[in-house]
């Protein structure tokens, strides 16, 4: 048997070498990953471009977009490296540590300032022109991009938490849909009322939850802000320990205590994603980022979108998205900028906005003319356009404007402890105060 075994291995080895040799015609055995290694002629520049794969759709769009870019720019070749989302940070930082950062790459909004402060990104301010002008962007994108008057990355899009709901479940319960018009959005009390009505209990079992998703950091943040709670002061120090924050937190936790929303883990641990829970009727309403629309639109059930219920007098949400940046050490700053410009072009964005994954981050794309380029009734539910101002006027996600990523983890952890009932709200907020102050004070 050993002979069979060894010959099997040998056979596989030989075949694979042959096949691999044949198919690997690009013969990149000796290519290094140094940015901008020149290929054949002296006129062709190769840019290395790296991004994460948020969804197969996004990867497809990137690839198609790159083909188009290369067709329009014959002197530039783009080598794209897709990286699994979870490990993106480690790969990017490893490459930077080894002095081989890609020429152009995605940057997480909440890591942007960390990178800017360490001079890892190419400054783009002098390159901005009429095609890419800071003033054209919606306020939230502007405040993300702008670091003390300078720009080091161009915002790719914007996404915001919104309220999704399953129309069928509403119909069955005889409840009116929430309005898509922010001026007519539900108050918090109205929201809780509906959620209660949608919660169906059978003995100890809860067959259907009214709502889900409020305990995710992004959602909680939106509700706190809407109630007027401050997160950070002008100088970047934490300011969360206030009564508005307390009020919102308690309101959200009450939902769980009343059995209207499940613990985040209970449903997560069933392996279903939130959209799947909405589709299968495990939940009636869901607070989730607007990107979920892309998936929801393909799931074959009538989904509706509405602004977040308001705590205060005005509905609001926050916006954020990744940026496209260039490495400070790139050997081809001009070409890199061309690529970034392309990626920020309205045409490129429209592809993804059409599918529901992205939302426009240029003010003019919300105009009557502008929306025609991306609005698709098959994807965007009825009345979706009424939400335009909701997205346009959103504020930047607070955690992207601070200098240290760790703060987000601290807040998230403390909130989780509070929601799980392990800690009361006053302790939670004061813990956050102390721990964040400590972190920000360090170096």
């Amino acid at each position, binding site marked *: 048997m050993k002979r069979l075994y060894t010959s099997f291995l040998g056979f596989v080895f030989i075949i694979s070498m042959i096949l691999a040799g044949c*198919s690997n015609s690009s013969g990149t055995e000796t290519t290094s990953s140094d940015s901008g290694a020149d290929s054949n002629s002296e006129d062709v520049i190769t840019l290395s471009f790296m991004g994460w794969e948020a969804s197969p759709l996004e990867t497809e769009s990137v690839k198609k977009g790159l083909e188009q870019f290369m067709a329009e720019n014959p002197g530039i070749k783009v080598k794209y490296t897709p*990286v*699994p989302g979870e490990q993106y940070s*480690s790969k990017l930082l490893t490459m930077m540590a*080894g002095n081989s950062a890609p020429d152009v790459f995605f940057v997480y909004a909440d890591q942007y300032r960390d990178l800017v402060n360490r001079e890892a990104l190419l400054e783009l301010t002098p390159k901005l022109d009429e095609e890419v002008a800071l003033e054209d962007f919606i306020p939230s994108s502007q405040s993300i991009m702008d670091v003390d008057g300078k720009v080091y990355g161009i915002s790719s899009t914007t996404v915001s938490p919104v309220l999704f709901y399953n129309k069928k479940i509403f119909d069955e319960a005889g409840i009116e849909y929430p309005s898509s018009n922010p001026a007519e959005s539900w108050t918090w009390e109205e929201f809780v009322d509906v959620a209660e009505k949608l919660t169906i209990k059978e003995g100890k079992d809860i067959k259907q939850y009214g709502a889900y998703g409020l305990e995710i950091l992004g959602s909680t943040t939106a509700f706190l802000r809407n109630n007027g709670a401050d997160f950070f002061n002008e100088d970047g120090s934490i300011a969360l320990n206030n009564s508005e924050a307390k009020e919102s937190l308690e309101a959200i936790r009450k939902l769980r205590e009343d059995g209207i929303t499940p613990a985040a883990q209970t449903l997560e641990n*069933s392996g279903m994603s939130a959209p799947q829970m909405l589709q299968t009727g495990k939940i009636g309403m869901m607070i989730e980022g607007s990107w979920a629309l892309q998936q929801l639109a393909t799931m074959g059930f009538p989904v509706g979108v509405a602004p977040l219920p308001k705590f205060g007098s005005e509905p609001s949400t926050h916006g954020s998205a990744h940026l496209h940046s260039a490495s400070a050490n790139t050997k081809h700053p001009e070409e890199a900028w061309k690529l970034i410009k392309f990626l920020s072009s309205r045409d490129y964005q429209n592809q993804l906005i059409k599918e529901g994954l992205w939302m426009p981050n240029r003010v003019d794309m919300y105009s009557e003319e502008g929306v025609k380029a991306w609005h698709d009734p098959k994807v965007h539910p009825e009345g979706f356009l009424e939400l335009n101002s909701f997205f346009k006027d959103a504020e930047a996600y607070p955690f992207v404007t601070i200098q240290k990523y760790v703060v987000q983890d601290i807040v998230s952890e403390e909130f989780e402890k509070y929601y799980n009932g392990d800690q009361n709200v006053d302790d939670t907020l004061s813990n956050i105060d102390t721990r964040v102050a400590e972190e920000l004070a360090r170096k």
Partner: protein
Amino acid sequence: MQKSLKVRALSHILLSLGAITMIFPFIWMLSTSLKDISEVFTFPPTLFGETLKFDNYAAISDRFPFGQFFLNSTKVTTIVVIAQLITGSMAGYAFARLKFRGRDVLFVVYLATLMVPAQVTMIPNFITMSHYGLVDTHASLYLPQMANAFSTFLLRQFFLTIPNSLVDAAKIDGCTPFGIYWRIFLPLCKPALATLSVFVFMGAWNDFMGPLVFINSIEQMTLPLGLASLQGMYGTDWPVLMAGTVVSILPVIVLFLLAQDLFIKGVTLSGLKE
């Protein structure tokens, strides 16, 4: 040894019960790979959806260049397995049977390298590999894996179980240390070598960190990266992911079964020819 019918029946029953729990995730993987995504998380869980969606398997190639990645993985893994068997057995033999100065110290140093988590050696590894000019090549994947303390350690332990008497007899007959290695130790450790091949294969086949850090070109990527790309940040295409995973596991199962053939119980140690 003939076992009574009762004992055999009892063995079968107990083993089967255990086995059912063990194969459960695999069954789930198979069943999911044939469903439509809306059927994956229904409650109560079903074994099959409405139809058997075999095109989930075809869809894998739509998401990433499955064939190319599979070949790349095969190439790297084969090299690593063969190399580790050779270097591991030679080094294991040296540590088990040859006496030389600093042997134990060196062995402990080898072992020590296993104790450092990959997350901190990732960057120095990358910088080293950059200096060698090997980034984005398959060499960056197989070279670091061609010698490994795990294999050395495993084979050393197995070599230790071979009785001194055999070694002495061989030496009396004028056998060189190499001869002893080649004609006595290797043949006697077939089960260990078979087991090791399975593990080395698994390790190299499923290696994710290596390709993640060292490979940038899509054409050079290996299967684990492809599978990871099926897990989006905004939602995973479970059926296709499971289809890809099932295909990825098959070679390991095949190898495992082949290895079992080398598990011949009760190899007698007397009457061995040299």
